[in-house]
């Protein structure tokens, strides 16, 4: 059976042929489209390493069936930097050392972008910590991650924040 889905992937329209309904959005990105920035940490929605923006909302790509996403917009870590310029969240992660091994980092950053667009946490560090708790970091970069999210928020305009 061949199914075809249309995706807007990092701003570009793509028509993707799928011969297997089992393919998750995560495995579509990584193994078929070779967009390997999004990582697989557990494949069961328990670690957040696979976080992408799906129709603007942060989502675990490992629990999304690609075949059910016809017409969806997907933003991955590869689509965040604009014209060679790092997104404020990416820049803040570097400045605050919000990562060590870097494996959870794309998921952390996409989750942070999603969190800021949700507009619920504000500048309250506790709300940011709680809001980022769906992204595990075994290296323990949480302090830098929280600082980076708060700093990026302070620097971003309303337009930038909503443009998820």
């Amino acid at each position, binding site marked *: 059976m061949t199914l075809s889905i249309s995706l807007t992937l990092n701003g570009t329209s793509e028509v993707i042929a799928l011969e297997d309904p089992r393919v998750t959005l995560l495995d579509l990105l990584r193994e078929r489209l070779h967009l390997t920035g999004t990582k697989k940490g557990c*494949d069961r929605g328990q670690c957040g390493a696979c976080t992408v923006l799906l129709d603007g909302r942060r989502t675990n790509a490992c629990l999304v069936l690609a075949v059910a996403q016809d017409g969806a917009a997907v933003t991955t870590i590869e689509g965040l930097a604009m014209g060679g310029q790092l997104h404020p969240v990416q820049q803040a*992660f570097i400045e605050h050392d919000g990562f*060590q*091994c*870097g494996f959870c980092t794309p998921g952390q950053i996409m989750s942070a972008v999603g969190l800021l667009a949700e507009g619920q946490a504000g500048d309250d560090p*506790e709300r940011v910590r709680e809001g*980022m708790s769906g992204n595990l970091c*075994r290296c323990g970069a949480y302090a830098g991650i929280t600082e980076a999210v708060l700093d990026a928020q302070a620097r971003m305009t309303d337009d930038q924040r909503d443009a998820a």
Partner: protein
Amino acid sequence: MSDIALTSDAAHLRQGSSIGQPLTRRDGPLKVTGAARYAADNHPDGMLFAVLAVSSIARGRVLGLDVAAAKAHPGVVEVMTSTNRPPLAGDPEAKDSPFMFRMEVLQNDLVRYPQQPIAVVIAKTLEAATEGAFLLTPRYEAQMPRVGLDGAEVFVPDSVGVGKPSAMQHGDVEAGLGAASCRMDATYDTPAQYHNAMEPHAIVASWNGDTLSLDTPSQGMAMAQARLATLFGIRPGDIHIRSPFLGGGFGSKGLVNGPQVLGILAARLVGRPVKLVLRREQMYGPVGHRAPTRQVIRMGTDAEGGFTAIANHVRTATSTYDDFIEPAGDVAHTLYATPALATSHEAVRLDTGTPMFMRAPGEASGSIALESAVDEMAEACGMDPLAFRLKNYAEVEPASGKPFSSKALRECYAQGAARFGWWERPVRPRQMRDADGLLVGWGMGTATFPALMFAGNARATLRADGTGLVETGAHDMGQGAWTALAQVAADGLGLPLDRLEFRSGTSDLPDAGIAGGSAHMATVSTAIHKAGGEVIARLAELAMGDERSPLFGAGNMGVIARGGRLHRLDDEGRSETYAEILVRAGLSEIEGNGTGTADPAAQNAFAMHAHGAVFVEVKVDPEFGQIRATRVVGAFAAGRVINPRMVRSQYYGGMIWGVSFALHEHAVTDRRSGRIMNANLAEYHVPVNADVPSLEAILVEEHDPHVNPLGIKGVGEISITGTAGAVANAVWHATGVRVRRFPITLEALIEA
């Protein structure tokens, strides 16, 4: 500028300004854009996907696999089992050194632990391979598994850790306990824990004749080459390992493991490149873990609270087919002054995978027990825990009597206590509440970790355009080696950092030793520094012997290398650039090599450790027993700090592991099946962001002229020690309940 004191073998001084700078990670842009390539991100042409089928029994044998059903699944290309896997030249059961561990690579149909690989399914898609593994529907002959520290016959191992004696004794412990005014005697239990790096173990293997290309995370590429060469009967130099980035290691990626070999075998079998990635549940078996311990600690003090004896008897576990004994007792050898000290280890063999080095192996499990015991002893003496530790401060290493190469622990205690506000602490427990009525407790622990060095090599090259290149087969698993080593390299060549190219992360470069034991920075930095020294020495010779050079005849006083120029030491105004020297000599480049190893004489003369003091505040709900570590302050002294930003992050990471040790991690095994029931990341808890709202690390200044030329001690593991015990002690201080079984559970506080 930082002056680097040299040891005797370098001829000339170098000065640089990179060391000590808190530079952001050089690999930062790659990591934040998703461009950093980890092993599983690779897709060579023609690649197939391999998925492991693993055992669901803990002990017994595989009677049959439904290979036909798997192969009938569309997309499945081949199934590799013990009957058809390509032969190995070497024996996976061989044990030629304590660093070699036996592995399961389908050499027979025996099952020795749950999640043991029993077949490999290779397919055109990941979906097909995964389903193929399911369809194998293994049939087993199962035997009763041996589970838990009381689950098998106890034996005394020949050695613990890596070749350390399993027992030691100094002075007369029984006499010391007998003469004591105050005593304590308690048993502490630590659980089985799994490394759970965020990146699952993975390998992409391609054969080209007898040449093997591997993308795989490795903390020890050269050692892996050697092991794989023996196993496959090929030359180490024909094995090319790329490991530019590891998604965490923590000791689980240090040695070659079964799944890696199976990936290579699968590629051999199908004649195409193969990618094999472990599923998360498969991380709980074939790639190591920290074994549980039970530690019986007895202590005695005199009337002033000075130790008269310390004893720790440890029981731990290893597998039924290999030995790795968690040396939990040894942390007592280095910390507190006592005239009598005895530690001993015994073990049981269980149907689990072989335990492996897991971040602070021995030190972490020993420290939570020792620091808890010290607090119980302090309480028995009616003393504040910090005052008690200061009273028993060791001026020489307790077990050996050796002086410390450096020990800024008093400064750690003082600075940490001041930052935390320790001296406001009431001595009695259950005295503090916050505005919401939550119980508040403050606890502390001493942190310690040996300053080890292994053996590593580096090559440095100066080029005629004035740039430098340093190459070493080092490893960055997040500790920041790519940045910090580049800083060392720049200063080692007297170059600004932007004129320095640093290459690493592949086995095609000089063997830099293993990234483990918190030894990598010390080892590789020394090698780099010496390689740079050799280059500068050669460069200086060229210049000093050439009458056209301003450095001509400067041989007696020597030269100093700084900012890409050599200056006469006796008249620094006279200098020239490296490029000028090389061009005039008609050379396109000069090269130097260096080796970093421990200095045996220094190691014999001194005890070498990094130290720290950790202070923790916990809040505990008085009715529910739910705990949150609301403040963690650690002050650490680890010699010279190459990059304080990287080091601070390492301390944070270890402190979070310490909180995790005390409160969260526990691999739960069903006693009947021997299977781990929480082999995932939902029920095996590691801390989330909200668990650690406040972390502070103080980098205490310390100079050590003995450990290595650069005075570097490792920082990757120390901050787990001290922290885990501090959390346990804080929980006691909050509640008045002394919990001795970790992780601390709700029921431990509710039922007390």
